[in-house]
């Protein structure tokens, strides 16, 4: 057995939450072993344990058959483990060369021997086909090149085992092809690679073996040649795809919001919109499917007034929106369940009650004298009603909201956003990180809102969720709308292809 790495029974706990629980994983020499799983399945945590950034709560790691304690990234580097992080660990103010030799302890001497180091790096880049300009500053090179710098950095330190954390997430198609050939080169030189991804297609293309993680646990390890995309997807999501439980809406009404050829930060494929047109109607759920980071964040910000479109028209309830802020959208009865509830939805240091009333303290039900006196009793009574109605589990209304569980936090947001009986509800990843019960609750509530005539725009990276809930589905890829599909008996194959940009 030419096994390089074995991780046994790894667990990592944050507070009460297990990010990893009893994970087993191994890598052989010269293979590409993929870790497959949804966001939050525990892939990154496991890798951070492996490179010594986190200490495992339980479990042990064996390298070349010997048990090791990896206490720091420095030690991981010495043991020949190199990681290319999803968010690159590059110092922007420095040059490519400076980034590569950073922290190098192999050579004695006070000063940097530029010529010798350059020669060494150039040799490496030749061998693996990683062309970079060593004197360029990180800020001046493309994302694809930055990734090559990261790989060079690891190789320069003598990495035998390379971890690539979602390496294709930020690359264009041509750059992805380049990466594949680099991976082939690395394999032929006997390096082992841990490839982290949630994209079926590339996983099958690039891996020798695949291990599926779900909710912090290992589900199964498979030979890539003996499986197919469907099996992987089922294992990853944990049940058979699409079991439609919700009744789809039959008749829909007038459009509440329309986007006509809207663009924003067009040049960016991951953080922009390119000529997007869509309409959300009364009494329907429009689902936006797509891999994370294809412009969904920007879409949600534009339809809630947090940012302004740079080109095109936004029509809200028949009025053209030109200079409107988030406050104006709220005034027009637009509700928003934002993608990051702790950063964008809630004020963590304030109480449950205060968060429930975040938008409505100017409402005359809760204040006198134009806002100059708050009716504390009315506020408390309202909050208690909400607690009962939305089943918010907390010790008291005075509790700081950050100490609640994710599901209960989301219920507070739901209560706040839905009690306004909105005309448009924009929900972004509404069930991310929630357990099954809370997920079910959130979905039921949204369907209920739809049945009352609310227009719902559901943006989710959870494909299953989009399929189950949407009456119409559009797919976003690199800032563009790839196609529109019916929510009734959706053509899954076609939608998956569209999500991959085909």
């Amino acid at each position, binding site marked *: 057995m030419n096994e390089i790495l074995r991780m046994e029974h790894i667990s990592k706990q944050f507070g009460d939450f297990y990010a990893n629980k009893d994970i087993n994983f191994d890598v052989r020499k010269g293979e590409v072993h993929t870790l497959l799983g949804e966001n939050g399945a525990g892939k990154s945590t496991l890798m951070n344990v492996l490179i010594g950034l986190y200490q495992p709560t339980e479990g042990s790691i064996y390298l070349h058959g010997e048990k090791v304690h990896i206490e720091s990234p420095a030690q991981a580097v010495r043991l020949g483990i190199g990681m290319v992080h999803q968010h690159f660990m590059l110092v922007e103010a420095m040059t490519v060369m400076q980034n590569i030799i950073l922290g190098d302890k192999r050579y004695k001497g006070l000063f940097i021997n530029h010529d010798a180091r350059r020669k060494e790096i150039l040799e490496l880049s030749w061998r693996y086909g990683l062309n970079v300009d060593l004197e360029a500053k990180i800020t001046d090179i493309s994302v694809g090149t930055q990734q090559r710098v990261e790989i060079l950095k690891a190789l320069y330190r003598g990495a035998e085992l390379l971890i690539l954390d979602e390496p294709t997430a930020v690359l264009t198609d041509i750059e992805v092809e380049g990466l594949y050939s680099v991976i082939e080169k690395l394999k032929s030189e006997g390096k082992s690679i841990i490839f982290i991804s949630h994209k079926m297609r590339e996983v099958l293309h690039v891996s020798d073996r695949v291990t599926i993680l779900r909710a912090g646990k290992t589900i199964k390890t498979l030979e890539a040649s003996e499986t197919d995309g469907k099996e992987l997807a089922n294992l990853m999501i944990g049940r058979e795809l699409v079991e439609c439980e919700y009744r789809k809406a039959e008749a829909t009404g007038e459009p509440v919001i329309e986007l006509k050829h809207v663009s924003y930060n067009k040049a960016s494929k991951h953080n922009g919109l390119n000529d997007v047109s869509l309409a959300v109607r009364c009494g329907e759920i429009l689902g936006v499917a797509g891999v994370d980071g294809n412009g969904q964040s920007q879409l949600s910000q534009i339809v809630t007034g947090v940012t302004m479109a740079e080109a095109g028209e936004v029509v809200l309830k028949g009025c053209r929106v030109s200079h409107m802020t988030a406050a104006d959208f709220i005034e027009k009865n637009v509700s928003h369940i934002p993608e990051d509830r702790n950063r964008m939805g809630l004020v963590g240091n304030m109480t449950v009650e205060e968060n429930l009333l975040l938008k409505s303290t100017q409402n005359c039900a809760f204040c006198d004298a134009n806002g100059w006196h*708050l009716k504390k009793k009315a506020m408390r009574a309202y909050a208690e009603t909400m607690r009962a109605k939305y089943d918010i589990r907390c010790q008291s209304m005075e509790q700081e909201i950050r100490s609640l569980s994710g599901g209960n936090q989301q219920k507070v947001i739901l209560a706040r956003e839905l009690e306004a009986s909105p005309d448009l509800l924009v929900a972004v990843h509404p069930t991310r990180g929630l357990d099954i019960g809370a997920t079910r609750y959130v979905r039921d509530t949204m369907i209920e809102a739809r049945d009352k005539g609310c227009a719902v725009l559901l943006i989710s990276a959870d494909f299953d969720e989009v399929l189950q809930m949407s009456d119409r589905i559009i797919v976003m890829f690199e800032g563009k709308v790839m196609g529109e599909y019916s929510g009734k008996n959706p053509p899954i194959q076609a939608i998956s292809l569209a999500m991959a940009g085909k």
Partner: protein
Amino acid sequence: MQKTKLLNVLIPVLSILLAFVIGMLIILALGKNPAEAIGYLMKGAFGSKTNLANTVVRAMPLIFTGLSTCFAYRCGVFNLGGEGQFLAGSMAAITVTLLIGHEGWWVTIVAVLAGTLMGGIWGLLPGILKTWRGLNEMITTIMFNYVATLFMGYLYTTALREGSVPQTAPVPDTTKIGRIIPDLRITWGIVVAILLGVAIWYFLFYTSKGFQLRAVGFNPVASSYNGLSVKRYMLTAFIVSGAIAGLGGACDILGTQFRLISGYGGGYGFDGVALALIAQLHPLATMAVAYFFAVLRVGSTTMQVGTGVPTSVIDIIQALVIIFAVAGSSMMYLPKVRKFVMNLFEKKEAV
């Protein structure tokens, strides 16, 4: 939650106690009797009607700068410019008084308004730099402090200098802010300070705007997603906190000091920041801590005379209170410590 609230009170109280214990040890190490020192301290602060009044007089400017800090920090604005804004207020007040040339209560009112306005402007400047250019207010407000201090130097040595000594002419008698009781130095300024403190407390916790201001301070991103104009609130916080400090400066110069001289107003700004932090940014607690600081300051002079223990031991105690109080709160953010303390609480509850 109750636990967090309890900690909010517990940390400052423990810090004060701990700082005092260290202070007493220092006094003991000097071969002096700590009990005697404390006795003199208390006598100095509370021993007579005059002394009692002096502590109140000493507390007034601290209340203003403390409240100024409170207001700004509640909105997430880390204004360290209380010093400069306080001085801007005093300078505007005395300049207006001397330039008008008349005396009387209406001059007092004009001067106080001028001081408040000038303080607000001195707060607005770093506010504009922050919202417009994204400059860190902690650095810019410090720079503005020095500009204000040096401008004050220009006033008392050159522009408004009176006679050979570098100082300005005093505020005319009838323009001075009146005393509440003729024998004691306490002026109506303290009433203004206390009313202001209560008003700020009411504003922050019982009005819609105050509520929104606190939301912006805790989480600007979530606030903007929920339709609050973050920049507008921040700019307001800069102006209002500057105006509060400026009002303090005006009340101080017109009620207590009467003229600008070298070293005037030194330290009020930073003391204000310190005591507001100890008071966990609660306006009413801020006033209490300001009074406590004043007691220490006034009492320490008597202590120095009586026992020969230098007044600076009190400064050391004060600094230790800050270090312990703030360290205590930031320790609570470390996950391990938090867990440990929470466990402690749970055990207590179980028993």
